[in-house]
Structures are given as structure tokens and as C-alpha cells.
């Protein structure tokens, strides 16, 4: 059920990002999924979604995938230093990820989009924290 819900979220994020709103929804969802699931299949998901986004936005296929997997690697490496499952971490990584995303792929209104992406990343984290996940169940965390 969790994975089905995630699949729907990722599909909606791809559609919104490539059609209507210039915000990195997929990047933020990947970040939050990494925080809660902490498994390596996130890289495969990031790879596939990046290729789809490149196809729909007329970028070179593989550009966005490369960005996503490098970003996810940093998130995983960061796990060794600090606690991941906090809204502060989610906000910080949303900010950093979106900053470099807009730097690499361009933006209309850099500062406003950056702020919006940080807020949305934090909201995604809060929404996910209310849903029971395998990690939450294992550690009996609400």
C-alpha cells in the first residue's frame, strides 16, 4: 500500500513539474522518501524519473537522473553524521537540493522558487511523518 501511494505521488509530481509548475517536486519527494525508507532502490526510482522528466522537458536524457542520484548519494552519506528524520534536516536538504537544481536547470524567480521549494519539502516531510512507514514500524515511532 505504501509503495502504491508513493507511485501515485511520484506520478503527480512528474506531471505537475513538467506541465504546470516550475518547482522540483520530484526532487523533494525523492528526498523525503530517502529520509523515511533509507533503501537503495531510491536510486533506481530517481534514475527512471529523471529520464522521464528529461523526455518531457526537452533536456538531454540522463541530465536530471545524474543530478538526482548525486543528490541522493549526499543525503545517504549525510546519514552517517546527523539524525535524518527531522523537519530541520528536510528543510535544509530541500533548500540545498533546490538551490543547485535551479542553478543547473534554470528558474524564473530564483529566490521565490527556492523559498517555495524549501517550504514544500518541509510540508512533504510532515505529511509523510503522519503515514506509517517500514522504518517507523520497525522502531515503533509515530
Amino acid at each position: 500500500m505504501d509503495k502504491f501511494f508513493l507511485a501515485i505521488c511520484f506520478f503527480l509530481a512528474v506531471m505537475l513539474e513538467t506541465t504546470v509548475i516550475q518547482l522540483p517536486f520530484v526532487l523533494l519527494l525523492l528526498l523525503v522518501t530517502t529520509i523515511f525508507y533509507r533503501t537503495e532502490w531510491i536510486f533506481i526510482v530517481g534514475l527512471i524519473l529523471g529520464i522521464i522528466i528529461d523526455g518531457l522537458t526537452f533536456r538531454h536524457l540522463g541530465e536530471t537522473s545524474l543530478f538526482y542520484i548525486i543528490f541522493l548519494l549526499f543525503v545517504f552519506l549525510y546519514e552517517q553524521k546527523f539524525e535524518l528524520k527531522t523537519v530541520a534536516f528536510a528543510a535544509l536538504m530541500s533548500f540545498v537540493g533546490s538551490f543547485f537544481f535551479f542553478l543547473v536547470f534554470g528558474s524564473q524567480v530564483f529566490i521565490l522558487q527556492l523559498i517555495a521549494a524549501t517550504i514544500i519539502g518541509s510540508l512533504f516531510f510532515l505529511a509523510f511523518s503522519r503515514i506509517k512507514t517500514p522504518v517507523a514500524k520497525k522502531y515503533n515511532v509515530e
Partner: protein
Amino acid sequence: MAKRQILFLVFIFCAIVAFFTLFFISDSRGYIQTVFSGPQTVLLHLFQIFKISDGKTQQENKALTLELAKMNLIKADNASLHDQFLTSNPPNKNLLPAQIVGMPSFLPGISMPEGYILHAGKKEKVFINAPIIYKDNLIGKVVNLEDHFSKVILVSNKNMSFSGKTTDTGATGIIKGTGNGTIIFDNVLLSDTLKVGDIVVTSGEVDINGKGFPPDLVVGKITSVEKNPSSLFQRASVASLINFSKLTNVFVLLSD
């Protein structure tokens, strides 16, 4: 330690696939676009329905909202086709109607899109730099192509620049996009006259193959003039007569 090794192995595998895709598989965008064009079109028109209508729409149920989206799509198609083919410039035989399937912007309905994704491509004889028009207004040009889809930048895009003139005073200059829906009419000689309310049109940049911007396509109306006697040139701000975020169909001007 084993978990870390698996992590790096998966990362390296994904990085290799991404590099391989980047350098060797660049022509497969068309398949991805074909699969997702349906949901993109529905989502885009749903957003345009909510932009146009008032708060009452929020109370309609989902089935009625989708029906409304489809009906408005058909009505918009008919209206734009009817309007376009009543105009005489450019000649109707060279026009290809194209549906907009994507127009990402920061705040839909508030900030202007920088470009469109159209459901028309190489197979429909669209070419790079093909002008995009709506009635007799220049909307933008094609910058990227696949078999059935193309990417368009608007006249207000920062990468857009072409020659233009005013209809009233005949002043010539360069029309440049500056982003977020704003256009300037720059490099106009101080000896030329620019006045607020004058219409700016294309000068015409058609090459020997019939490709390029034809003359007298409307770009917009002058809203303010900036004239400094100590400068070499004067400039004006131009506002487009078309709301780019409200369009659902445009027309590609094909070569003869």
C-alpha cells in the same frame, strides 16, 4: 560496512546508466512524450479551468469538473480555429494548429510561462525556428523538436531577439524578451519617434527558403518610453496583447 558497499554499488550502476543514456540514447524523448501527453493535456486544462472560473467551481464534483474540462477544450479548439482562419495574415494554407500540452511557470495564472510544449513535431513538418502565432500575433518560435512534440520559447523569453518596427511612426529597432512576460523594444535611434500606445510589429526576417518571421506580425503595444539624450539609443517597454497563460491552441507557421 556491507550496506555502504551496496549503496555505492547501486550508485555506480545508476551513474553508469545515466551517463550511457546521456551520451548514447538522446533520440528517445518522443516515446516518453507520447505516453505522457494525454495526462499532461488534461492536467493543463484543469489548471486553466480553475484559473478562469470563480470559487463556485470548487463545489462541483470531480466527474462534472472533468466533463467541463473536456467541453472547454473542444470549445477553445473551435474558437481558435474559427478566429485564426478568418485572418488573412499569414496565409491560412501555411498554418498548422497545435495543442499546448505543457506550459510550466512558477505560479500558474500569476507568473508568465517562458515557453510551451506543443503537440506537433517533425512528422507534422514543424522545423526549428518556426514562428508560432495566434490570430495575427507572434507568440514565439520553435527551439527543439521531436517526432510529434516541440518546445517553444515565447517572445518574452530572455533568449528571444528579433527586428521590429512601430506601425504609427515607423521606428525600427530590436525586440528583446527579458523574462516573466516582459518585452522591450531596444536599439531605436534617438531620431525616431516612439509613443505610448503604438503597436510594435515584426519587420520580417524571412530567408530564401521562406523560413523566419514574416513581416507585420503583432508583438505588442508600447506602454512606456525610455529616452535619454546622452544615450545612443532609446527603448520602450512593450506589453503583449495576448495573455500567454490562457492559450490552449496556437498555430505553427510552416514554410511554403
